[in-house]
């Protein structure tokens, strides 16, 4: 086996050039909480490890005209400590902070969580519900991609060879907006979602004017459930509308049976989490 090389470039341009030069043998290292485990298990043997944590753009949180830009390599711990982001997008922050232990939070990033492409990734449904846009850079320059278009299946993304997720943009939204993310695990922490549900709502005079709903761990990729959003928009979040949204969530599920949950259980829980997450997001929207 060729011994790997390690590089820690200072810019995205350099990182992209290094990845291009590695001819498919390059791997991006953000927090390393997946990559190092995979290397140790012999699942991957990169010829080049490109550490992106020295790139300012990928490790910064900034606010631009009401929108938030979060570098793809910002750690969960830094996001946890960012009062402004937490106030604007509590659901997104909570979702990222649910990943692993304090030790994992000290390293793990939303970019890594997305690119690892686990169907159960906690941050992804929250980012999809938020309408987050990923800025992606590769050999052919930059492009903006809705987060839901990046996962392509377990362990697979739609990124083209040599492309790197640089940052996420969480859009500006009107007053009266709130988001939430809930997941079900059999323990209280340190586990992988059986089902995850992200909800992002805007309320005006008691009526829901905009909604996005996303589910994790119930299909090969995180799902944007447009039927659920449709059921909520225009309603006063009455029981009938919420039940219709829950039904849309259940209908969207295409889960697997495994040791963490059966198809029947995951499908039922998707509706339950939708109801609870809507309640939290609506409460936050009202107080915003």
């Amino acid at each position: 086996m060729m011994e790997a090389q390690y590089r820690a470039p200072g810019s995205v341009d350099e990182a992209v050039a290094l990845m291009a030069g590695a001819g498919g043998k390059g791997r991006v290292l953000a927090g390393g909480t997946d990559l190092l485990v995979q290397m140790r298990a012999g699942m991957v043997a990169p010829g080049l490890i490109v550490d992106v944590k020295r790139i300012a753009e990928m490790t910064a949180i900034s606010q631009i005209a009401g929108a938030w830009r979060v570098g793809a390599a910002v750690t969960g711990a830094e996001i946890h400590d960012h009062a402004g982001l937490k106030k604007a997008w509590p659901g997104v922050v909570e979702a990222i902070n649910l990943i692993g232990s304090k030790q994992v939070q000290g390293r793990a990033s939303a970019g890594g969580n997305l690119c690892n492409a686990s169907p159960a990734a906690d941050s992804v449904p929250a980012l999809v519900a938020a309408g987050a846009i990923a800025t992606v850079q590769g050999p052919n320059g930059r492009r903006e991609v809705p987060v839901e278009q990046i996962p392509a299946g377990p362990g697979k993304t739609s990124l083209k060879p040599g492309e790197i997720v640089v940052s996420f943009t969480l859009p500006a939204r009107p007053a009266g907006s709130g988001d939430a993310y809930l997941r079900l695990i059999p323990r209280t922490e340190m586990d992988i979602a059986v089902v995850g549900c992200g909800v992002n709502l805007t309320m005006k005079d008691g009526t829901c004017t905009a909604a996005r709903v996303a589910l994790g761990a119930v299909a090969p990729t995180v799902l944007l459930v447009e039927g659920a959003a449709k059921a909520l928009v225009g309603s006063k979040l009455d029981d009938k509308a919420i039940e219709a949204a829950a039904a849309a969530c259940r209908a969207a599920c295409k889960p697997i049976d495994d040791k963490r949950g059966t198809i029947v259980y995951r499908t039922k829980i998707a509706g339950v989490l939708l109801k609870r997450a809507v309640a939290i997001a609506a409460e936050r929207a009202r107080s915003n």
Partner: protein
Amino acid sequence: MSKTHVTTTINGEPTEYLCEASQSMLDVLRDELDLTGTKEGCGSGDCGACSIIVDDRLVCACLMLGAEAEGRRVLTIEGMSHGDKLHPLQQKFIEMAALQCGVCTPGMLIAAKALLDRNPNPSETEVRFGLAGNLCRCTGYDKIVRAVLDVAAEQRETTR
């Protein structure tokens, strides 16, 4: 094979070493620098036995490459006491028998220090969540949690 040359600070000491690109920080500490207080448990970030603090953030040394320590500040269990004077957490773990076999203890102590450095007044729940990434198969955790809460209370007393 070309190795990576790293200049860093470990337990306050300027330190240099050579490491392979894929060599973990844990292997560098234990095998290159003879800092064997940091233990290897699972090697996959699940047990916390290899907890260290890098630039004031708690991390697992098994989930970090040695090469990444360039220019950082690393604290390991060897840097927790001041010479022969144990850190209050270390002293309290002994007094309250918050350890049995001892393999998880360096990681527990480092994680507890990271917790108290950020939150000097944690609730029991916060202590349990703060140490959720550290597995102990001996104590049942209760003595550890009580030791950490005790130290927090004493430190608040002395800084008052």
